[in-house]
């Protein structure tokens, strides 16, 4: 009987598989081989002659620099980070050192550096420790950031991106850890694993960012029940990503809904809406987001975005129902 894997089991399995090849890789992080092994994320990892597993101290800025040092020297590094907040400590390296590498180091010398970070979105822990805007890191440093949402993107992103010349961050939602993730299949994936299309329909285009795919699919299923079909996409935070598939869909539906669970004030969805291609189509657009503009959002709030289905239905139908 086929085992149904939870989100975290699936991710840790793929991380294990992706680092078993002949290519040497240095995998490091705090508690990577101790205790819960980073909430189970590293539970499968066993050191071999080519896969070095190293528990390290609490110095995230240096960990980021070490990853870039290994990359400059042509090696492969994967840094596991328990909380996305910790990555903030490494921003100098992520911005400045990677800029240097991109500008001056011939790509033929590049190794690989990947940060795998858990976004602590599982519940209110306090005003700190809840940074959930990995798209901001992408915008700040001009780097690819992937948010793993479904079984398909877990497999594709980890297999194709974990060890690959260059740098990226792969983010995991702690809120999803224990869930058995639905086996949704994709209709379309671009070559960068930046855009995944999950559903096909003619009435509305729904674009998910961050960890919003479940919400997007739930919304699409609700609209299905109302006799309205939707194209559903998940988009990763990748600078200069070709958005052609979404533009084509919007041209067809003339209605665009963007769902983004992050608290960042400026979002990649804003860039999509303000793009020349989308503006020339003049679609009806609805942003379902949290903006993090108010101090009250630092107090105890639900991590789950609540979407008002009726309001969305009105939007799709052009406000013709009460």
């Amino acid at each position, binding site marked *: 009987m086929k085992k149904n894997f939870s989100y975290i089991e699936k991710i840790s399995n793929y991380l294990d598989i992706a680092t078993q090849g002949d290519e040497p890789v240095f995998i490091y992080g705090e508690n990577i081989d101790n205790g819960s092994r980073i909430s189970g994320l590293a539970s499968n990892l066993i050191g071999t002659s080519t896969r070095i597993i190293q528990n390290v101290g609490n*110095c995230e800025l240096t960990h980021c620099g070490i990853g870039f040092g290994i990359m400059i020297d042509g090696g492969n590094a994967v840094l596991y980070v328990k909380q996305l907040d910790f990555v903030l400590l490494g921003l100098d390296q992520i911005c400045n050192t990677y800029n240097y590498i991109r500008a*001056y180091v*011939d790509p033929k010398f590049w190794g690989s550096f990947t940060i795998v970070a858990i976004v602590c979105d599982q519940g209110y822990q306090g005003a700190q420790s809840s940074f959930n805007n990995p798209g901001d890191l992408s915008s700040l440093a001009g780097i690819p950031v992937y948010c793993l949402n479904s079984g398909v993107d877990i497999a594709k992103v980890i297999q194709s991106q974990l060890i690959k010349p260059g740098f990226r961050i792969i983010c995991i939602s702690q809120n999803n850890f224990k869930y058995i993730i639905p086996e949704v299949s994709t209709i379309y994936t671009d070559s960068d694993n930046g855009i995944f299309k999950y559903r096909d329909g003619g009435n509305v285009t729904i674009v998910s960012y961050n960890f919003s795919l479940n919400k997007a699919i739930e919304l699409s299923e609700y609209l299905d029940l109302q006799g309205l079909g939707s194209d559903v996409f998940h988009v990763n935070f990748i600078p200069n990503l070709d958005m052609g598939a979404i533009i084509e869909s919007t041209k067809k539906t003339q209605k665009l809904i963007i769902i983004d669970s992050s608290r960042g004030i400026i979002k990649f969805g804003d860039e999509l809406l303000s793009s020349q291609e989308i503006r020339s189509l003049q679609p009806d657009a609805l942003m379902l987001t949290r903006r993090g503009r108010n101090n009250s959002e630092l107090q105890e709030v639900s991590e789950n975005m609540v979407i008002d289905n009726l309001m969305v239905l009105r939007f799709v139908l052009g406000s013709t129902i009460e």
Partner: protein
Amino acid sequence: MAALSDDQCKRLMEIRLNQHRLNEMLKRGNFKHFPIHLAFGHEALAFAVSEVMGQEDVLCLTHRNIAYNISRVGDFERILCHFAGNSGDSPAPMGSMNLAFRDVGIYYSSSILGNNLAVAAGIAMNRKNSKTGDAVFVVTGDGALEEGVFWETLIFAKSQNLKLVILIENNNNSMSSSIEQRRCPIDFRKICSSMDIVYKSIDGSKILDTLGVFKEIKKEIVSGTSSVILAEAYIETYCNHAGATPGWDTDSRNISISDGIFINGTKVDPLHNLREEIGVTRFDNIYKQIAYKI
């Protein structure tokens, strides 16, 4: 300590002389878009590090990297082309603060204080994983060591027994503040002792002594008797932070190539010491062979 050969003396003088040439170009406004941090007074360190580096060893530098680049690259025109906005054989023009020539072992130069320390530790980690015996040298300053990354790197490097040589250029200055003006003193001999890290103190104005210490360092790294080594070199920087600073004692506009290779008014100049160490006649004879560049 064996005496320096004529070629070694020439290389050392060229580090100074080419900085003079750069300073004259800066005074003429040749590099308007490139703030070049000259390193008058750093020549002995740059020379010694370069002398002991093997084919596979790596050097990571700071924004004040010019003396090391001149020393390692040799071909000064290759450096000049980057200040002129040409890339030469690199992917892009590197400007001054990020100047690093990989083919001579300089893998990284960072304009961010302390940033290069962690990157150097990463390179050393990769070399350890690859089981090579290569040494990684990283240069920092008495200002950068106030950054958290300095201490983090020290802990990481020692914990992993990396073949990492951290060279502190202690010129008692961070921009325009002396150590006394900005922080408490730090005794690195005691710090290193507490972490079981080898500590070396260097008088960075003495050529032969400096070279001697770096030869020891290289020997200890290669033989495996030491892993992390922290070398603290006391030096004077005979020019201000970057570019002209009117009214300052160290305004590089007051330094003129017409005064010859020395800098007027300096007390512990490595070049003065070189002349004392090898004798005035020999010094002058060697200098005459390269002075045509003036």
